[in-house]
Each structure stands twice: as structure tokens, then as C-alpha cells.
């Protein structure tokens, strides 16, 4: 049996247009070993009663894998943007506050709409232009060293942490953010991906592109997969400059 409870303070809102319902609610959730924010929310769902003793609809949140590989459960935990699944309760000061990310449209409670991130991947053509999925033999040979550069870049879960932390991503700017820029670096590294490198760079040449970075370096601080986002932005920035200056010569 639970020996004690953990106090959670959760920011809630019933729907995107229901700012009138914005409120904080507090819950005491029975502690269990290896408790993390999501296992706490699951426990809460079985008995959704506030500290005042009022039964309320359970808090709504997004989660899939519970092992920090899908990117779904990003939220602001104790003021820091991160995945809730790896937020271990015993390692955090209490009460624990949970808030939705602020840089994306709110859906409900802790859920936000991150669809812009997927649209951005379309915009920068984050794919290898394949001739087809029929058998065409092995792919291009690559060094293990190249794999070791590409693999960390490829672990981006489109979780939104870097956009949330970036001061340049806000209501007054259309800055695409670090995640999509990192994907351009990734695909421009690949032996056949780089054949369409110019198109990707061109998608990042506007004001909303790589030039929008203000070099605050918050992104790399919050990235749960420790992707070298600042290096990626610098690298892509160099590529766009080169392309801008000499691209027409190479055509």
C-alpha cells in the first residue's frame, strides 16, 4: 500500500476556445516505487479527486510509448519542458506542477497541437527521393563514422521541446525552429539524400528559415536526445550561405 501521497498541481483548460475554463487543480496521488509523472497520472485517472475532495473529469494528456522514444508526452514539468514519462517523481521537488507547452495551440489540459512540426518536415523535404521500393540492390556504401554522425541527428522524435524553449519561436515570428533544420542537415549528409540538398536549403533561405535563429542555444539544453542542434543550425547556415553565393554557379 502507498505510504504517502505526492501533490500535483495541474494547469487545465477544457478546450482550445475555452479560456474561461482555465484553472489550476491540485491532486494528492498515492506514491508507488519508480513513480513517474505519467504513472502518477494513470493512478489519478482511477480516482480523479482534487485535494478539496471534488471528483472531476481526469486530466487529459498525450502519451504512447512511456519510454521516451515516441515524443508524445512532452509537457512543462516544474517549469521545464520535457517528456513526462522520464520525469521520475522521487527526483523532483514537490508539489509537482504540470502545464501544457505554450508555443503550440492548446487542445485540452496538457495536450497541444504540434501538427506544424510535421508540416515543416514537408516544407524542407525531409526524405530521400527514392526511385521506388522495388529491388535495386544495396544502398550506397557509407563509413561507420558517417553513421555515427547521422544516427544522433536521426533520433529526433518531433517532440517539440526545442521549439518550446526557443525564444525566436513566438507569436510574432514564423521561425521554423531547430528540429526541421536538423533534418535538413541529416538528409544533406546522406549520399543520395544530398542530391536534392539544394531544394532543402532553398526552403530555409527565407526569414522563417535558418536566419531566424537568435543563437540563444536553449534548444540544445532541452533536447531529450542530446541532438547537437546548435551544430546542426551552424552547419546548415554555412550550407545555405554557400548555396546563396555559389549555388547559381553550380547549376
Amino acid at each position: 500500500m502507498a505510504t504517502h501521497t505526492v501533490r500535483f498541481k495541474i494547469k487545465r483548460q477544457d478546450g482550445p476556445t475555452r479560456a474561461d475554463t482555465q484553472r489550476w487543480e491540485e491532486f494528492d496521488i498515492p506514491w508507488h516505487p519508480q513513480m513517474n509523472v505519467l504513472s502518477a497520472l494513470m493512478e489519478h485517472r482511477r480516482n480523479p479527486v482534487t485535494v478539496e475532495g471534488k471528483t472531476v473529469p481526469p486530466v487529459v494528456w498525450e502519451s504512447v510509448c512511456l519510454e521516451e522514444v515516441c515524443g508524445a508526452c512532452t509537457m512543462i514539468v516544474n517549469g521545464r519542458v520535457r517528456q513526462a514519462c522520464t520525469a521520475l517523481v522521487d527526483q523532483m521537488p514537490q508539489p509537482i506542477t504540470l502545464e501544457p507547452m505554450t508555443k503550440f495551440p492548446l487542445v485540452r489540459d496538457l495536450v497541444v497541437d504540434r501538427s506544424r512540426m510535421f508540416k515543416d518536415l514537408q516544407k524542407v523535404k525531409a526524405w530521400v527521393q527514392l526511385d521506388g521500393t522495388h529491388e535495386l540492390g544495396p544502398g550506397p556504401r557509407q563509413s561507420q563514422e558517417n553513421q555515427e554522425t547521422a544516427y544522433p541527428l536521426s533520433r529526433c522524435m518531433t517532440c517539440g521541446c526545442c521549439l518550446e524553449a526557443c525564444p525566436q519561436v513566438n507569436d510574432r515570428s514564423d521561425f521554423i525552429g531547430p528540429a526541421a533544420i536538423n533534418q535538413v542537415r541529416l538528409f544533406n549528409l546522406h549520399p543520395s539524400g544530398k542530391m536534392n540538398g539544394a531544394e532543402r536549403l532553398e526552403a530555409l533561405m527565407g526569414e522563417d528559415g535558418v536566419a531566424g535563429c537568435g543563437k540563444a542555444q536553449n534548444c540544445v539544453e532541452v533536447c531529450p536526445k542530446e541532438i547537437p542542434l546548435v551544430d546542426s543550425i551552424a552547419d546548415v547556415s554555412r550550407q545555405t550561405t554557400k548555396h546563396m553565393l555559389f549555388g547559381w554557379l553550380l547549376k
Partner: protein
Amino acid sequence: MAAKTSVRSESQKVRRVIVVGGGLAGLMTVIKLCEAGVPVDLFSLVPVKRSHSVCAQGGINASVNTKGEGDSPQIHLEETVYGGDFLANQPPVKGMADAAPGIVFMLDRMGVPFNRTPEGLLDFRRFGGTLFHRTAFAGATTGQQLLYALDEQVRRWETQDVEDEKGIVVKGEKMVRKMEFWDFLSVVQDENGAARGIVAQDIKSMEIEAFPGDAVCLATGGCGIIFGRSTNSVICTGTAGSAVYQQGAVYANGEFIQVHPTAIPASDKLRLISESARGEGGRVWVPKNAGETRRGRDVPEKDREYFLEDKYPGYGNLVPRDIASRELFKKAFHEKKGVFNSKSGKNENEIYLDLTHIPKETLKKKLAGILEIYEKFVGEDPYSNPMRVFPAVHYSMGGLWVDFERAQNGSLVAGSPRNQSTNIEGLYACGESDYQYHGANRLGANSLLSCIYAGMVTGPSMASFRSNMAKSAFDLPKSVFEKARKREQEKYEAILKMDGKENPYAIHEELGNMMLRDVTIERHNDVLDKVISNIDELEIRARKSGVTDTAVQSNQGATFMRHLFNMIVLARVIAQGARNRDESRGAHFKPAFPDRNDADWQRTTLALHKEGGSANHAVNYVREFDYAQNGKGVHITDAVDISLVKPRPRKYETAGAASAVAGTDDKKTTSAQA
């Protein structure tokens, strides 16, 4: 009349097909459909990039024979059917094994950052049930990397316009229309029962809509959440498969649930520690002294019992999962030799999985992804401490029954509309939601392969079905769809009105605890009888629960209620199937019937839903049935196609036993062990 292969229907609408599920199988199906010129509506409960395929860790099998061990697709086929204890139909397995090298090369071309050899070729590692290095991998997050590659290709198809036969762009129509955050409710059936589209619910706005489709594919994954805690993602409730089973689809081999030997014990999820840990040399052990108080790292070699290596010198720590799980369970549960915890004063259900003898540099290159999970959730450094693990529900070998058409050469007839078709005309299934490739036990790193291969088969199969159909779904009267939509709308409103005292999440916890305790590693008939009657009771109680939320938007409580009912229905199929099968085969183990019984049970379990029983959901197990496709009747029996590899007893004590070809050639097996 418009040509049957036309992109437009007679009423001039673009003839789309529907794929439900955006994991590896669904995405591969979509890509193949697009390449065949068929526009697709892709539905998914979550953004497809977050599908459960993302959790797969170790790798994907393909007999490329990069290491010169003499591996071949023939050996891959043999080891897969042997590992599956001869319950899989062999032609689809042959098709898969033959296609595997091409699939891995395709993924490589898509940009998957596979680990490399010094020459820049794909690197391969060992996995369970084989002695060959057959598994290509991208660190220890291979599923994630494969999913991303297919997701990227589908994203490209999202930007492509639909073109008609003359190459003229159809305005406003893209090849892929992605519908994310939609929950599948049911298929729309016409008066003959054929699938003509689906009804789905937007889980944000909660609106319910019907969508026509000239064929429908379910690629909706496994059902591990029925067992409460498992290695599965929270979305793997099996709800879609259960829904179509209740609409008449046959569910096959439901009782075959894989328990993976090594996961991290916890209260919310049992996080997987991939078999690749053992493939790279990880060793499983317990202290010889049950009351050992020293930390794992401090227990010297002479005081350790490497029980898998001792009992199975041939395959050692890489025996197939069903065998390893039973041995770990026996050690901890029956012999009480799990890791001793001085705080609780008892031997916990924990076994050591040890990587500490492997150089840190190697581990970082090949296994960092899983070691990071262990470190983050357990708070202990696995580079210098043996990990503590225990078996967990992992994969469903069973699933929706699907057909195949056998070719002369023993493989599948390419493009046959029968391949991957369920018994509901126009409804296809692939990926973990089908039952086709793994028999009674799946070999590690065959799941990513079977998902992609099945997708490669399903796409052309659906395209071929679509070109042969008499009347497009887009030419049916609207009333067909409206009726189906209304039925689901009424069901949803009924859920919203539920105001009983029971909490659906608490009932799910009870269901999960029972299924986990009684229907996994060891199965006993008297216990299963109780489980089956308890399932009925739980269902009746679930009907007395109250929906926890009545909000108009993002009502997760109502969605969960529906999934819960569907889980209970599948739980019955699993438990009853296990009760019936009086033998032991692969993952299905009954101590009272310890041997495989080919005379009575070399057959597929075929379950049909029927009304009846105290909760009004009962299972009708059949030995044969008929189904129709494009005007032709097909007769199906439960006989397993064993035409390629003759069944023989399954033993892993001797090296090379899993493959007759490999086993007869001493030189090959020796080099494979090296």
C-alpha cells in the same frame, strides 16, 4: 463504364482505399499502393511517427550473409518455422525470408542509419533462435529509425497529386490524405457483408464520420494492453481487430502471446531490454546462493549460475524467447532464486542480464538506446552494474486471420488479391494485427521484417482487388454509410450516458492483473476456466461503470471505455483458445500437457464471434469456413501448410538444430559460432 482500374468511379469521384494504422506495416502498405497509382486515406490513432513500431529496438533480419557464414534465405525460413514450432503456414514465411535482403537494402536506400562494417557495408548481429549474424540494426532504436524512414516516404506521397490514366492532375486530391488522431470504430459493410469503408472518430472534436474506401486494410498492431502492463505502448489495445472480429472477421491463434524474457519491472510499463543485449554477448545469471546480499557486480564468477548457457550449450543466452522466458520464470518464481533484496527480505522476480564484461565503447555504439532507457528509469548505470530484468508480455503471434495464395515455387503468388485478405471481402490486415508469419513463437528481429514484408504484399493485393471489383464503394448510395455512421453515433452516445459506480480504468487493471497472472507463461485448465468466467463478470461490471468524463472535446474517458469493451472481447478469445489447446507449443505452455501434439493440434485456431454466454459475447471455434472475393468462393480449413519444412521435435540444446540445412554442414555452424 469507366475502366475498372480507373482512378475515378462511375460517379467521377476519386477511388481511394483506406489504411488504418501508421506503423511499419501500414506505412509500407501505403507506399506500395501509391506506387501502384492508388490514392490512400491513412487513419491513425496517433501521429504516425509515434506509432508503436518506434519501440522496436534490436533490428531486422535478412540473410545477407555479410559475414561469410553461409547464411541463406532458406536457412532463415527453416529457423523461423522451427522457432515458431511449426504452426506458421510456410509459403508466406518463405516469401518473407526471400524478400528480406531486398527489404533491408531498400531501407538502407531510404537513409536508415544502419551500423556499418569497416568496409562500409551493413553490419549484422546475432539474435535468438539462430547461430548466424542476420540482424541489421541502427544502434538499439532500429524500429524508430525504420518507422521514420517509411514516415518520410509517406510524407513525400502526401505532397504528390493524384493523376488520372492520361497523367492529368486531379485538382485538390493528393495521393495520401493523412487522418491522425482518429479512432477506428468499425468497417462499413454492404448488404453482402463486404467492407466498403470505415467509421471513425476524431478523438479531438469527437465527431464520428463514415468514409468510403474501395478496400480497407487494418495495420493496427498488437493487443498487449489487455495484459495491463506489457512492453507495448498504451495505444496497443487491439481495439480495431476486436471490432472487426465482432463484425465477422475470423481471429486466428489468439492464444499465442509472446512473453519476452528481459524487460524492466515497473508499475506502469514493462520497458523492454532488447534481445540484442544478448546478441552482443549479454549473459543471463542468478547468484548461486539464493540469499546473496552482495551487489550483482560484486558477485564473483564462481558464485554465479549462468542457467541458460548451462542448459542450452548450443544456443546459450540466445534460445528463442518462449524458452528463455520459461527458464527465467522457473528460476525466480518456482525456485525462488531471483535477485535477493535485503530491504524486502525476499527474492524478487528479478534476474541479472549482464553486459559489464563488454567494452563500454562497443556498448555505446551498438546498444546505447536501450542502456539509456535502463539508466533513466532504474537510475542505475548498466555499463558497470548487471541489469535486473524479468519476462513481460511483448507480442501477439495471433491476430486477424488472413489468406494467401501459394505459388508453384512454394512462395506467394505475387499480386494475388487473396494475400493478406481477411474473410470479410475487401478487408485486409497486416503487421502484428495479422497472424501470418510467426506460428507459435516469433523469433527476435522477425517482427520488423514481417510488418514491412506484409505491407509489401498487402499494397499490391489491395490494388488488384480494387481493379477487379464490380462496383466501387464511391458509387454506393450515401445511405449505406449514413446507416453505419448512425449506429456508431448511437453507441457513442450510450457510452456518454453511462453513469454507474465502477471505474473503467480500475476494471482494466483487474483484467490485466488476471490475464498477466493466469494466461501467460504457464497455463492450467482449472485456472483458465475461472479466468473465462471472470471475464464474463468483468464485462458485466464494465457495463455498470460510469464514463469519467462528459466533455465535448478530447474525451479520453469515452474512448477508453470503448477500448475496454473491445479488450474484454479479445481477452476471451485468448483465454478460451488457451483453454482448448491441450498441448504445449511455442509460447503456449501447459505443464499438464508438456509435449507438442501434432496429431490433434497441428492446426490453426480459428475463432468467430457469436452472441451467447452470460455477457452475450461467446467464441465459436471452427475447423473450416468459406469466404467470397470478387465473386469467387474460397474454402479454408485449419490445416497448416507444412509443405516446405517437415515438422520435427523442437530442441535448442545442440548447435544448429534449428535448421536442417545449416545443421548438416559442420563447417558452416562452426564458423557461425565463432
